[in-house]
């Protein structure tokens, strides 16, 4: 390892973030005593803390680094990502947060079983929690590996994964939910600070957001001529690989027209296809946000339904403000660091957030400090998301699999010990998986998790909360059908892309031309099918809902006999006390 390349500021600020995380975990471990503290933070987290914690958990490596890189490389179309990540919460608030909270269960599997009186359905739901969870941890682990090897040049990728994974696993095992609530809340503010401060400094040097966007103007003369009147901070000329101004700035650009371009369609022919792509992307992101299991579990940590609603409001404000900033990195990166366009993967536009502050000059202390701050923010990003995922997966193992299925008569102390053991096992498994995905793209993995959640959990929660006629079979068929279809499509396109990329690289090395395989040719000939497979939400979400309706109608006789009471608990104001009555009845009937 070459120590002379290490920037001391980056190292110091990143270390501080890690140390704060560990210290807070230890501190709160002393106060987390009961089982309820471990699972849902004693249901006593205040609105401000809980909102900061949800936001801290939600803003992952993909949000912190990925969006800036994507805006830089794809332009306008990439803006849908931050907007839908933030606004998916509105759907959660309008249709799901209130009923779910009133129903009162620790986890999504609890809800699945409670709503349909079916232990079988609980098992299916637990599998999905673990499945989506592992898919979502892999990109976080990759973010950790990549950032650590950026900070310490020469460090092997897997070391970063193991170090960050071990720190978080320890934290969760010690403090459970209450421990990470505090840590995540603080990490939100670290991230907010880390993304906004460098932007304010850079914009004050390089001109405003709007001014930087206005430099991208297809009608204006080329950049070199423009620099005469643009003053000392002129835009740098774009390399060949960068998208042209017009495509970059306007809707239906490189991201959404890729399939149509590959098919050789003209601009006019490809526009309707881009529109379909855009809509499908919107549906996947909005519904996926409303269905992410590790986010949903946090609604149970509010003391009551009013607090749950207020929390969602604050989450939307906190993450909304955050998401204004990453695209600014992308715009500035395009204007002043266009050399990043020439590299790919972790050395390309993806690292624009970490690298951009060094624009202020190599020897400049301010530039180094700001770069250190953005690295610390990146640390906070993947650490907090990973800890949230670890808690929800560990809860699934300790609470659902152990506490409900394997040993229903276990004491609270036994369950707490199981929580700690499960945290270590799940954390270890996540680290192992993380070391295997170095070659996979972060966005590819996050996209898979969102697509599956949108077509499985969202229809389940939405329909179960609002339609009394749902049966267990209907719910399970829809959830599994939608989820598996989405998974199959996304995997199919991604794997065929990876094969194609590897084939092209190998052909380039050997000096021959790459001959596309049957699937690649099929995609080229059928751009519409390619789009529907790459972004399947536009048809998998309706399919899941339709399946639920059809199968539920067919199995009408199996609608839970106390469906009316369940719907009352889901919808009646908590002040009427129907929840307590419902619990009494369930116990009375020997449940």
């Amino acid at each position: 390892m070459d120590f002379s390349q290490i920037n001391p500021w980056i190292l110091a600020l990143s270390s501080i973030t890690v140390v704060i995380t560990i210290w807070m975990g230890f501190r709160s471990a002393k106060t987390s005593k009961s089982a309820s503290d471990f699972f849902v933070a004693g249901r006593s987290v205040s609105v401000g803390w809980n909102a900061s914690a949800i936001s801290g958990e939600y803003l992952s490596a993909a949000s912190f680094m990925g969006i800036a890189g994507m805006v830089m490389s794809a332009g306008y179309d990439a803006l849908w990502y931050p907007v839908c990540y933030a606004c998916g919460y509105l759907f959660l608030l309008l249709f799901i947060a209130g009923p779910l909270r009133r129903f009162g269960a620790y986890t999504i599997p609890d809800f699945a079983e409670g709503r349909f009186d079916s232990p079988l359905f609980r098992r299916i739901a637990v599998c999905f929690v673990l499945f989506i969870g592992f898919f979502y941890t892999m990109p976080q682990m990759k973010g950790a590996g990549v950032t650590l090897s950026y900070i310490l040049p020469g460090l092997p990728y897997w070391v970063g994964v193991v170090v960050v994974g071990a720190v978080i696993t320890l934290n969760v095992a010690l403090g459970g939910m209450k421990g990470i609530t505090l840590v995540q809340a603080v990490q939100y503010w670290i991230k907010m600070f880390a993304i906004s401060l460098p932007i304010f400094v850079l914009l004050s040097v390089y001109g405003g957001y709007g001014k930087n966007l206005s430099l991208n103007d297809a009608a204006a003369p080329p950049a070199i001529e423009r620099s005469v009147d643009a003053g000392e901070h002129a835009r740098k000329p774009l390399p060949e690989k960068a998208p042209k101004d017009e495509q970059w700035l306007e809707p239906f650009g490189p991201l959404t027209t890729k399939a149509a371009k590959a098919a050789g369609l003209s601009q006019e022919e490809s526009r309707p296809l881009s529109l379909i792509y855009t809509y499908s992307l919107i549906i996947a992101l909005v519904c996926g946000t409303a269905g992410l299991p590790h986010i949903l579990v946090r609604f149970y940590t509010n003391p009551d339904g009013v607090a749950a609603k207020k929390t969602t409001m604050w989450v939307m404000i906190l993450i909304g403000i955050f998401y204004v900033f990453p695209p600014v990195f992308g715009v500035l990166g395009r204007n002043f660091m266009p050399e990043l366009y020439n590299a790919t993967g972790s050395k390309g536009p993806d690292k624009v957030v970490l690298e951009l502050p060094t624009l202020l000059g190599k020897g400049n202390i301010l530039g180094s400090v700001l770069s250190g701050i953005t690295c610390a923010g990146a640390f906070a990003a993947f650490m907090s998301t990973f800890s949230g995922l670890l808690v929800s997966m560990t809860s699934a193992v300790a609470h659902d699999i152990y506490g409900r299925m394997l040993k229903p008569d276990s004491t609270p102390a036994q369950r707490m010990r199981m929580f700690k053991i499960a945290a270590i096992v799940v954390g270890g498994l996540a680290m192992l998986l993380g070391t295997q995905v170095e070659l996979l793209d972060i966005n590819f993995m996050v996209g898979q998790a969102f697509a599956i959640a949108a077509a499985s959990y969202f229809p389940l929660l939405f329909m179960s909360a609002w339609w009394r006629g749902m049966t267990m079979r209907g719910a399970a068929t829809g959830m599994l059908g939608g989820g598996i279809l989405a998974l199959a499509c996304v995997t199919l396109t991604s794997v065929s892309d990876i094969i194609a990329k590897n084939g092209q690289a190998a052909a380039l090395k050997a000096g021959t031309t790459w001959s596309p395989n049957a699937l690649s040719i099929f995609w080229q000939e059928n751009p519409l099918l390619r789009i529907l497979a790459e972004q399947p939400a536009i048809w998998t979400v309706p399919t899941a809902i339709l399946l639920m309706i059809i199968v539920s109608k067919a199995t009408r006789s199996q609608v839970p006999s106390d469906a009316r009471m369940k719907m009352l608990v889901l919808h009646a104001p908590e002040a009427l006390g129907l929840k307590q009555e419902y619990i009494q009845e369930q116990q009375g009937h020997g449940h």
Partner: protein
Amino acid sequence: MQPDPQDHQDFIHSEEFLQGLMKRQLRLSIACAMAFLLLLLGLPLLNYFAPSFMAQRIGGFTLSWLVLGVLFFPYVWIIARWFITRSMALENAEVKFAEENQQKNS
């Protein structure tokens, strides 16, 4: 007086109360969702059918970029704020309504 927990003949447990309750909640949620979807699904349509209008410059931004990258967030906050105020008022009204009817029936 406290109703017997096993007795489901009172107003709170009636079909009428549940249906009214869900209908009012759903109506509010759908109204808010419509306001949200109007912009969310309308913006791509505007981009599609009025590209030159959406490409006009406002302070350096294109109109389309300004809406999606900046103004979308406050718009959603307003909807959320409105929904929360209304749904809390709705809950209070429901409690009052239920208790009044409960007393009438008992």
